């Protein structure tokens, strides 16, 4: 299987503070990679470097063999092939759910309104929200908004999905409905990179768990291995804290 994402020696700073100290990461086609770690470890910054929402000062970002930092004219096209789901949903509040889903296919892929609506309804049904097509985001619960956000990303038929703490802003009773959608998506073979605190999801879905702390990747392993036999002291500390919390 080919590598669809390759990060090489990524360094990223905010002002004088360096938050990523030289990260290397590869993701193969169809692979599910779950990034975990304590807050402030740089996980979100790292996933945001993959589609250049954050621009690293040093290193290289390859997606589909394209070096994004040196081929800026290809950035838009590559971004269209990567869906992203955010902690805060970021639906467009001035548009209905349906319009949220139709905007990118119509404007970026020049699909007709009819075509875009058909696709949109298919994906809305998949996340179980076809009856909300004409609602506005503010009329939906957090869990529903996040499911719409996932459907919105899918209407562009991406090869890769990036999830940046998709359940961290949700009330506990809404987390499961979003995770269910993500698990179903994972079963379809799409490439996924997920930053999350949901260890159950990581165990169930991940092909590989990446543990980050202090702006570095400390450990990468298959989920069973990682959760039962963490190799590094830092990872053991982290897991023991989580277990206590559970």
């Amino acid at each position, binding site marked *: 299987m080919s590598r669809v994402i390759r990060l090489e020696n990524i360094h990223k700073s905010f002002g004088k503070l360096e938050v990523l100290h030289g990260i290397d990461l590869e993701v193969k086609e169809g692979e599910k990679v779950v990034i975990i770690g304590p807050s402030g470890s740089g996980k979100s910054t790292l996933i945001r470097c993959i589609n250049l929402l954050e621009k690293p000062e040093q290193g290289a970002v390859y997606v589909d063999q394209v070096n994004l930092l040196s081929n800026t004219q290809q950035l838009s096209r590559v*971004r269209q092939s990567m869906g992203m789901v*955010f902690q805060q949903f970021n639906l*467009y509040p*001035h548009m209905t759910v349906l319009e949220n889903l139709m905007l990118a296919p119509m*404007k*970026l892929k020049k699909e007709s309104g009819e075509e875009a609506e058909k696709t949109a309804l298919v994906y809305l049904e998949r996340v179980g929200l076809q009856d909300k097509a004409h609602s506005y985001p503010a009329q939906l619960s957090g869990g529903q908004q996040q499911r719409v956000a996932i459907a919105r990303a899918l209407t562009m038929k991406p090869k890769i999905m990036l999830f940046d703490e998709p359940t961290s802003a949700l009330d506990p009773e809404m987390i499961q409905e979003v995770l269910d959608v993500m698990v179903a998506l994972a079963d379809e073979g799409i490439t996924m990179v997920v930053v999350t605190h949901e260890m159950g999801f990581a165990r169930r879905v991940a092909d590989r768990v990446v543990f980050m702390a202090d702006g570095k990747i400390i450990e990468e392993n298959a989920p069973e291995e990682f959760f039962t036999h963490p190799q590094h002291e830092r990872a053991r500390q982290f897991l023991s804290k989580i277990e206590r919390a559970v």
Partner: protein
Amino acid sequence: MPGPFAAFKWEALLSDWNVFAEGFGMTIAVSVLALLLALVLGIAFGMMGTEKSRLFRLVNRCYVELIQNTPLVIQIFFLYNGLPYIGIQLPIFWVGMLGIGVYHGAYAAEVVRAGILSVPKGQFEAAMAQGFSYRDTMRHIILPQAKRLAYPPLTNLAVNLIKNTSVMAMIAGGDLMYHADSWASANLYYGPAYVVTGLLYIAICFPLATYAKHLESKLEVSV
């Protein structure tokens, strides 16, 4: 001696109604065109004020500060008396339209800038992540949201703009204020002239101001 509002003075005004109508028409024409100019300048310079590039932001600041910190009258005098020295002689209508449009454009730029900055950063990021260019992000996602917040202050701005067209009277601009003033100076019937003029301004400004209040209250409900 007859009072300032003696009946024959009103009769005189009534028979000269076309003088006032002409001025009123001019005031409306200048207002509409100046408002369009102000909006175009406001959107262009307002967007510059939210750019990452320092140069754009500097251009925005220079325009806004220069215009907001000098009186409108001086700017009009500059166009009227200053430009002819470098060989540019604008018709009076253009002087009024440009001067008033550019002046209010600076205020509109601040309204637009504040509107754009009020849109959460996550909206830019969601649009960028979907693959939208900066231009399309602005057009489809950011400006429509900024617009909602900008409408009430922009409507108030339109009211001020209409009233401020009266500075054209100082350069014989042919607007409502100028005609009222020159008609009254000729026959000394100041009372009815200024009352009627004031009422005509109210006739356009009051509905607009009421509309602005309505927009504001709607905004409060939806936020």
